[in-house]
């Protein structure tokens, strides 16, 4: 006789085991469990046929047959593999001297110098999207990357390029992108993701004239403030601002070194004027580069008291690297409800930069010792200023220049020191006055702005004229300045009691009976049966209920930004082609905000498994209407029923030339497991739509009943491919009308065993189309009802 146990601490009382067991082994008892409801107990042991269906259906993996839990095996295996990996891996990283690719003198433009600097610094991944004036970098990268064993990829948009960099960076490659104003604004969401996860990368922003499209071929420096504040949530990062072509080369190398040293995205600000200027650049034979530090077994995200920057493993090291855009503790376990962890996290990220402010100060002081007028500037404008200063000095005007090579962290102390000596501070810049405000915050003397937002270089003669003639008009009484002192927010945290650190467990955050737990069971079983090395697997997700699933899986994972799991997965796969990437995404994530990215991802056809869990609404945010909500179904934003037809996800995937497409029901877990196993052995991309209705929001609003009732309805509403063949059009129409609300107006395509597989690019397409009971198509393809 079989022994059946239920882990009462995990059980959420969804009743799926009670109702879906074919032999009715389970029953509700009168005992009240720890969770506060009547516990379920296996009673009729004699009836049990050991089919194991209850284990698949238990979303929490709480049922043990003969003492064995379905998911615990995977957990134990993963932990053992992790221990082995930590013992075997060796630490790596640090400074080293390497030879450059193009030593000597060259006559090249700023864009080319930037690319050469990146390649010398060890850049192995470049993702970009066409935008003037950064295009030349793409051309040059495309030319050089294959020669040095690197990767160049053109993505579908700038946001995706940055998502690719995130994936590549976590896979161990030094990576870079180049963009311009509008693209840089788009990147801010993924930049924030890179900041919270401390991912080293270099973002080159070749500035042009804004706002909006503005003068795409003009120059400017309109992103001085955006470069610092572009990410939401506000953390610190480093911004470099080179001026000459030689400096562009040096700064690019420095940008890579700083990003690796501090584990932070570094933004390199170029301007259209110096990006297109050809000039002499002298490249040394050898340069020093820094590689990110890795110590096996160390915490991944640095909240250690003594270390500034923590160890950075990569995907495939076997450390179960968990990455999430959510607040996470030092092991990467998401704890969005913990205020203390969040404060420690953001404080660490701020501190590692501002505590190194002296190390990160890079300025040039030109004739400042006796200067009465101090000019603060950065970028191409400094060359114009230098010309003007030389001429002004000849005429006896005491003027000097404070040149910023690293814009952020801003050298406040230096500005304070020099501005005390000067009578006034002048800030010429190619915008409407941005650097002016930053200088004013720390200047002790009055600051005068000299803006020129027309998209042309500031003519040196204009500055000279201003110094000679107009400056005296702007003198005014110096105001006393006071500087705020920062209170250390972590000090009072120390007084609090030390909490227990959240560790990685199989417990999920999902609602009782949610299909995502069933999907996890199937996925783990499929991986087990397909015999895939846990080390190789990387699970990637976006935002939403579904996207929390990778956090509950025992291998490397990433919970990326909304709509960008596909570009991220592309980055991982490009850098590490041996990895088995599994994208787990929701319908809103992959076909609403991320529709373009998903379709482009399918089009790229890289070998990976893409699971789109279709729950017919936005579950995480309160059940809003989604692109997959059936016609007439009620959601929180469509209380009188959805007015538009839903997307046919399989149809979209087929239109994007997918090689393997399948639609599965969460109520048929054994079949789902088989499909997943088959998908993992596919050469190209495998797209699987899993119908798993949201029980909490969508289920309640559309009166689907209990979880088991919902899954029963699901079985009834969908019809298999073979059954559909036998029915006439009229019969099928009735069938689907009664099947509300999983009915779509068109027929669901699932074969005999509730799945539909299509191999080959085009051959099966007409066959698929033939089962759409659209009158015309039925007549066209079946030839029965003419």
């Amino acid at each position: 006789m079989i022994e059946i146990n239920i882990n009462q601490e995990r059980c959420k009382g969804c009743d799926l085991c009670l109702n879906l067991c074919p032999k009715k082994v389970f029953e509700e008892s009168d005992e009240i469990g720890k969770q506060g409801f009547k516990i379920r107990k296996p009673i009729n042991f004699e009836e049990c046929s050991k089919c194991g269906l209850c284990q698949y259906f238990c979303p929490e993996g709480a049922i043990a047959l003969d003492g064995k839990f379905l998911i615990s095996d995977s957990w134990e295996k993963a932990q053992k593999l992790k221990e082995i990996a930590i013992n075997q891996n060796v630490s790596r990283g640090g400074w080293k001297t390497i030879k450059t690719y193009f030593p000597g003198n060259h006559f090249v433009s700023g864009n080319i110098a930037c690319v050469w600097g990146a390649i010398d610094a060890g850049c192995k991944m470049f993702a970009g999207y066409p935008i003037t004036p950064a295009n030349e970098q793409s051309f040059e990268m495309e030319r050089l990357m294959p020669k040095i064993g690197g990767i160049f990829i053109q993505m579908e948009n700038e946001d995706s390029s940055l998502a690719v960099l995130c994936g590549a960076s976590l896979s161990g490659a030094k990576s870079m992108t180049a963009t311009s104003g509008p693209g840089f604004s788009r990147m801010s969401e993924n930049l924030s993701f890179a900041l919270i996860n401390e991912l080293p990368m270099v973002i080159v922003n070749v500035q042009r004239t804004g706002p909006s499209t503005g003068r795409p071929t003009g120059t400017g420096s309109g992103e001085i403030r955006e470069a610092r504040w572009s990410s939401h949530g506000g953390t610190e990062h480093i911004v470099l601002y080179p001026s000459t072509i030689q400096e562009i080369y040096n700064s690019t190398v420095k940008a890579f070194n700083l990003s690796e040293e501090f584990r932070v995205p570094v933004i390199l600000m170029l301007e259209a004027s110096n990006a297109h200027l050809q000039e002499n650049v002298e490249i040394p034979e050898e340069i020093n580069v820094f590689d990110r530090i890795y110590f096996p077994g160390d915490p991944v995200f640095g909240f250690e008291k003594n270390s500034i920057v923590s160890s950075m493993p990569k995907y495939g090291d076997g450390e179960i690297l968990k990455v999430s855009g959510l607040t996470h503790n030092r092991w990467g376990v998401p704890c969005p409800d913990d205020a203390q962890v969040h404060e420690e996290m953001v404080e660490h990220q701020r501190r590692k930069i501002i505590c190194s402010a002296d190390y990160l100060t890079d300025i040039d002081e030109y004739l400042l010792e006796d200067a009465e007028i101090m000019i603060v500037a950065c970028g191409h404008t400094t060359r114009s200023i230098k010309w003007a200063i030389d001429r002004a000095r000849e005429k006896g005007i005491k003027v000097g220049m404070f040149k910023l090579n690293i814009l952020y962290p801003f050298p406040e102390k230096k500005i304070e020191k020099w501005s005390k000596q000067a009578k006034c501070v002048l800030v010429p810049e190619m915008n409407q006055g941005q650097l002016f405000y930053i200088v004013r915050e720390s200047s002790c003397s009055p600051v005068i702005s000299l803006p020129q937002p027309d998209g042309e270089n500031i003519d040196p003669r204009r500055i000279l004229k201003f110094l000679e003639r107009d400056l005296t008009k702007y003198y005014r009484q110096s105001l006393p300045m006071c500087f705020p002192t920062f209170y250390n927010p972590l000090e009072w945290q120390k007084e609090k009691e030390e909490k227990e650190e959240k560790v990685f467990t199989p417990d999920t955050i999902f609602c009782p009976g949610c299909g995502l737990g069933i999907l996890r069971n199937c996925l783990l079983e499929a991986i087990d049966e397909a015999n895939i090395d846990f080390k190789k697997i990387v699970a990637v997700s976006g935002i939403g209920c579904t996207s929390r699933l990778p956090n509950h899986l025992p291998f490397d994972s990433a919970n990326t930004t909304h709509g960008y799991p596909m570009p991220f997965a592309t980055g991982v796969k490009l850098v590490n082609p041996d990895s088995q990437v599994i994208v787990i995404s929701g319908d809103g994530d992959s076909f609403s905000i991320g529709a373009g990215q998903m379709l482009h991802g399918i089009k790229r056809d890289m070998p990976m498994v893409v699971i789109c869990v279709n729950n017919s609404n936005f579950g995480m945010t309160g059940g809003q209407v989604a692109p997959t909500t059936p016609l007439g179904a009620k959601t929180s934003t469509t209380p009188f029923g959805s007015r538009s037809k839903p997307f046919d996800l399989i149809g979209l995937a087929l239109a994007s030339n997918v090689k393997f497409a399948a639609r599965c029901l969460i109520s048929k877990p054994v079949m789902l497991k088989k499909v997943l196993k088959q998908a993992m052995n596919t050469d190209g991309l495998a797209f699987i739509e899993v119908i798993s209705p949201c029980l909490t929001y969508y289920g309640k609003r559309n009166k689907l009943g209990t979880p088991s009732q919902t899954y029963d309805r699901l079985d009834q509403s969908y019809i298999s491919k073979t059954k559909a063949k036998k029915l006439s059009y009229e019969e099928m129409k009735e069938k689907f009308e009664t099947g509300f609300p999983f009915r779509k107006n068109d027929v669901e395509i699932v074969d005999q065993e509730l799945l539909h597989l299509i191999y080959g690019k085009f051959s099966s397409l007409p066959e698929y189309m033939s089962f759409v009971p659209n009158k015309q198509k039925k007549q066209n393809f079946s030839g029965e009802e003419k």
Partner: protein
Amino acid sequence: MRKEMIGTGFGGQGIQLMIKIFASSLYNKGYLATFKSDYGPAVRGGKSSAYIVIKEFADDWPEIMEADVLIALSQQGFDFWIKEIKQDAIVFYDPATVKLGQKDGRKYYAVFASEIANDLEDKRAVNMAMLGGVVKITKMIVLDDIIEALKQTRKFSETNQKALEQGYDRVERKTN
């Protein structure tokens, strides 16, 4: 001595290549040259310009202020730039496409670039013929430097070499 040069013409006449070749040969000869070209829709038709600055010292202002030399291949470009350049500047022009305006203190040199290109039965050679003339008068480099720079860019052909040599021979000082 700081020198600034502007090349201007229609998009497609080869202005960018001409000035770029000139700049790289100047750079190869040890001049502190910088090169910059117009970037944008203009280079696909309409006025297209490219600029060379020979700096006095390495950190000099690398952009155009007042040009010493203007090389004009189209009337539109000529009309635009003639107001912006120095009073004693040298102007090279193609008499087939540019008509001079009022008399002023500038030195005008006619290079019969279009005629040379027609003789060579390749209209694309206009820019190289022009460059030949420019090289002769400016005397900063010799023709072989240009040919050497051309060879580096894979744009080198016999027609181009012939055009350069003929342009070098057919330059005339003009007064308007």
